[in-house]
């Protein structure tokens, strides 16, 4: 897992077009990044089409158990859950991959559900959690970082101490602890009720755990920006704090923040899948790639594809995000040094 230390990009109050446009152009020229972006878009579109696949192609409901079902392959009908013939001949094993695009392409899980369709649906959940946690995390972190860096003194002290505390917790521990407590029983704070099965819980937990990761570098940038002449000039000319933050500080912080985004999404997806594999992430009846892997672990040696396929999907998406992230970094803030920490 990597963090980035960032340098304030050297621009004065921007005429908004040129640096952004040249950065975007540079990104577009980066073939690897563009391919990665294409792969990501493909995944997003395909998972969005999940209902269409389930209803119109496979004609099954990937969320309802189908233990008694039968499926037509070629000219025969076969049971979805097949009696075991090996070993002791006890129990049933779900059907394996049929490689038939319209029926149980990757086989069934232990409840007879179509794994491929579930993966499509699960993709929506995983991607949703990844992107929204990433967005929330970066937004909150940027705001906190800008406030702490700009206003300094008391504001900075409070925010920094809070960040230090959250950061001192090893992330896995914080995420797991919060999830164990909240996810199975929901959050009930008087005015705020979040049900136990809501996706909002993993999203918020994962987002908050990574806030210091982004907030500290942002704070650092704002600190160094504050000393720069053009900010001093703006302050001296009587501009309001809000105006300065919006018009002078933000445009200089933005490129570095943008660099964070793809990487945070990848990190969040990996964290969500870890939590879900442990059973404390996404809860049934929802499915995510992580939960499908969890389901597949019981069938690991008999029907390995149930566990293999979602994992491969995660790897593909995260590789694409990382490649895109590298490209974004090269285009928007090449001096950002790649550092790592957990």
């Amino acid at each position, binding site marked *: *897992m*990597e963090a980035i230390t960032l340098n304030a990009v050297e621009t004065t109050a921007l005429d908004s077009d040129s640096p952004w446009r040249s950065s975007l152009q540079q990104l577009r020229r980066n073939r*690897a990044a563009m391919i990665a972006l294409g792969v990501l878009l493909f995944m997003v579109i395909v998972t969005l089409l999940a209902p269409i696949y389930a209803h119109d192609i496979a004609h099954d409901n990937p969320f309802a158990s189908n233990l008694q079902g039968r499926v037509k392959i070629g000219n025969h009908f076969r049971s979805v859950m097949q009696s075991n013939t090996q070993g002791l001949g006890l129990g049933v094993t779900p059907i394996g991959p049929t490689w038939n695009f319209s029926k149980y392409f990757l086989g069934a899980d232990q409840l007879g559900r179509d794994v491929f369709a579930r993966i499509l649906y699960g993709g929506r959940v995983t991607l949703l959690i990844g992107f929204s946690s990433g967005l929330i995390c970066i937004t909150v972190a940027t705001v906190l970082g800008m406030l702490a860096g700009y206003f300094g003194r008391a504001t900075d002290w409070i925010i920094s101490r809070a960040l*230090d*505390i959250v950061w*001192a*917790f*090893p992330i*896995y*521990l914080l995420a*797991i*602890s*919060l999830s*164990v*407590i*909240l996810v*199975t*029983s*929901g*959050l*009930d*704070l*008087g005015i705020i009720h979040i049900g136990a099965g809501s996706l909002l819980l993993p999203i918020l937990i994962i987002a908050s755990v990574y806030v210091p990761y982004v907030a500290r570098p942002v704070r650092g940038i704002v600190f160094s920006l504050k000393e720069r002449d053009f900010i001093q000039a703006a302050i001296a000319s009587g501009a309001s704090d809000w105006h300065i933050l919006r018009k002078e500080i933000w445009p200089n912080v933005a490129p570095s923040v943008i660099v964070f985004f793809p990487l945070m999404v*990848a990190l969040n997806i*990996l964290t969500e*899948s*870890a939590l879900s*594999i*442990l059973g404390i992430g996404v809860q049934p009846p929802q499915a995510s790639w*992580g939960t499908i*892997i969890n389901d597949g*672990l019981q069938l*690991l*040696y008999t029907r*390995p594809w149930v*566990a*293999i396929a979602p*994992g491969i999907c*995660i*790897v593909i998406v*995260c*590789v694409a*995000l*990382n*490649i895109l992230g*590298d490209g974004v970094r090269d285009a928007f803030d090449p001096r950002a*040094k*790649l*550092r*790592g*920490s*957990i």
Partner: protein
Amino acid sequence: MLRFIAKRLASAILVMFTISVLVFLIFFATPGVNPASRIAGRSASPAVLRQVAKEFGLNRPLPIRYGLMMFHLFIKQDLTSYVNIGDKIIPQITAAAPITLSLIFGAVVIWLFVGISGGVIAAKNKGKFIDPLVMFFGIAAISIPVYWLGQMVLLVTQGGLHRSIFAWIPNGGYVSLTQNPWQWALHLLFPWLTLASLYAGIYARVLRGELINNMNEDYIRTARAKGLSERRILYRHALRCSLISIVSLFGLDVGVLVGGAALLTEVVFGLQGVGWLTYQGLQNLDLPLIMGCVMYGAFFVVLASAVVDVLYAYIDPRVRVVA
């Protein structure tokens, strides 16, 4: 220098205290969550709930509960489990520690070797084919969920191929070093590789970035103007400076791992180290066990962070002046 160390120590203790309070609050005091029902189980009857609350002092005010737990943990050292009543926590942790250390030791050796070589090879051949190739592997390594990777490794080595190619790979578990060194290594081989993969990817990427940055520094130009060979410049000047920034990263990573961050790897491969223990505690909501493991983990993270700061001052002569 002494004042520096004293300050670090003080802030370390403060951090540990804060972590312990936070963990305590999370498990005991999250609003809208009843700790007694967590301990007793989800479907416990009201009578059982009252019993649990009484037994574990859950009716006392929060600070007292916290104080009691800390007292039992550190001073009397007889903290017992809520779940396996009577099991002492501290001995469990001390028994689990060597396993975690064994896992980390081997993984560290592998990931340093692979990561540093990868970074150097990529930087040396910047722009040529092998550079993006190595970087791709690095990216792939950090994109794989560790737990899933472990399961895939098990699938390959314990599944169909177990009878043929991989018959020699044991199915999880741990053999102590003192008992049988060969078996110790054999049992840890794949856990080492699995854990190392993630970090090797990170280190290769970070090192490549650092090396390339450093190769553009003025002192490299001076070294070249001195007539030194490119090889010497890369290894003796650029690499030496790049490794410095890796040190702090490394220290933190090892600290966190010793503290139990490898819990997913331990769980997958059935290695009953501290991470595994933490996981058991979390699953069973065995709060004293969780507390014990968390404090143990936090201690090492904080210790590692302090050691890194001091070590950094030693390795980078520029920092010594400031410290």
